[in-house]
């Protein structure tokens, strides 16, 4: 007895045979245990594949296609403005302090620090910087100025921290 080819058995299960060929195959399968067993194995494989479950996706791919990013909440926008104003204010207040402390700043040589007695450099410094800053006429204690600068710095760090937090930053 001639058996059905692998191709015919596969096409039989795929419903890809012509009606005539399908009818002939069915007659043969009814009479041939070998081909019926091969068909059964292939059908079992189809069942295994059909039973394979789907996995759940754990990320949302749709979020990258959001139309417009959500605007920053009003509180964050106001905080940014206040930060900028405080920083500007602190800069204005700090200016007189800079006038008194920066005029003479020793800068060490770029070749490294040379102790006194170096044959090239008599005093260890090659450059004195003499800054002439404009005077604003404000006279404030150093402690008050320092407090202002420290407060402005802390506010700046806090504000940037809020801006950089995931809930508040813009979606780009």
């Amino acid at each position: 007895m001639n058996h059905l080819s692998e191709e015919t058995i596969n096409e039989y299960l795929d419903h890809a045979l012509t009606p005539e060929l399908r009818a002939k195959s069915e007659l043969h399968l009814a009479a041939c245990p070998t081909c019926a067993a091969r068909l059964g194995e292939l059908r079992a494989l189809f069942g295994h594949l059909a039973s394979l479950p789907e996995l759940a996706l754990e990320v949302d791919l749709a979020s990258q296609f959001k139309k417009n990013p959500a605007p920053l909440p009003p509180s964050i926008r106001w905080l940014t403005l206040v930060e900028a104003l405080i920083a500007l204010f602190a800069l204005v207040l700090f200016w007189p302090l800079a006038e008194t402390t920066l005029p003479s700043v020793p800068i060490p040589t770029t070749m490294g620090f040379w102790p006194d007695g170096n044959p090239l450099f008599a005093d260890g410094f090659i450059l004195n910087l003499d800054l002439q800053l404009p005077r604003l006429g404000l006279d404030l204690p150093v402690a008050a100025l320092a407090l202002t600068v420290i407060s402005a710095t802390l506010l700046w760090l806090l504000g940037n921290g809020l801006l950089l937090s995931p809930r508040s930053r813009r979606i780009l």
Partner: protein
Amino acid sequence: MTESPDRDLIVRARRGDRDAFGELVRSTQNAVFNVCYRLLGERREAEDLAQETFIRAWDKLHTFDPQRPFLPWVRRVAANLCLNHLSARGSDLPELNEEHDLAAPGTTPPLLVEQRQQAEKIRAALLRLPPRYRIAIELRHFQELSYEEMAQALNCPLSDVKSDLFRARKLLAEKLKDPDFP
């Protein structure tokens, strides 16, 4: 031809409406991810390829007929991307991830364990196939394409498609019958 339920979303998306495309993505992302996972076997890689699939689909949306359903098309895009990715990656076999399969309702724990083991065996057997055989199984059994549609999707002769599919089934059946596999 009956109107595709996605038609309105596709038409809006083709006009540049990203929210509309986002809705299409949301409704098909799980299916696309599973196409990639069946072909690649590694979750992170499958997520990356799924994302790339939708980016590619967004770029090519102007070529898509809005009368047709979106899911079959985007799944084919995913399959082709994965095939290219596998070709570029070479024949390295990935380590199979621990699965989190959806359990059938009402299953008892021992049955669940057996189902998971069977699923892992099937996935491992699929990953052992050469990429072209894997794609043939994916397109026929999971995307239900006809031989002719497979040949068109893969841009190869019908005889090659049938040969790959039948050979793939034979190899799969042998592996699944092997009690020592994987």
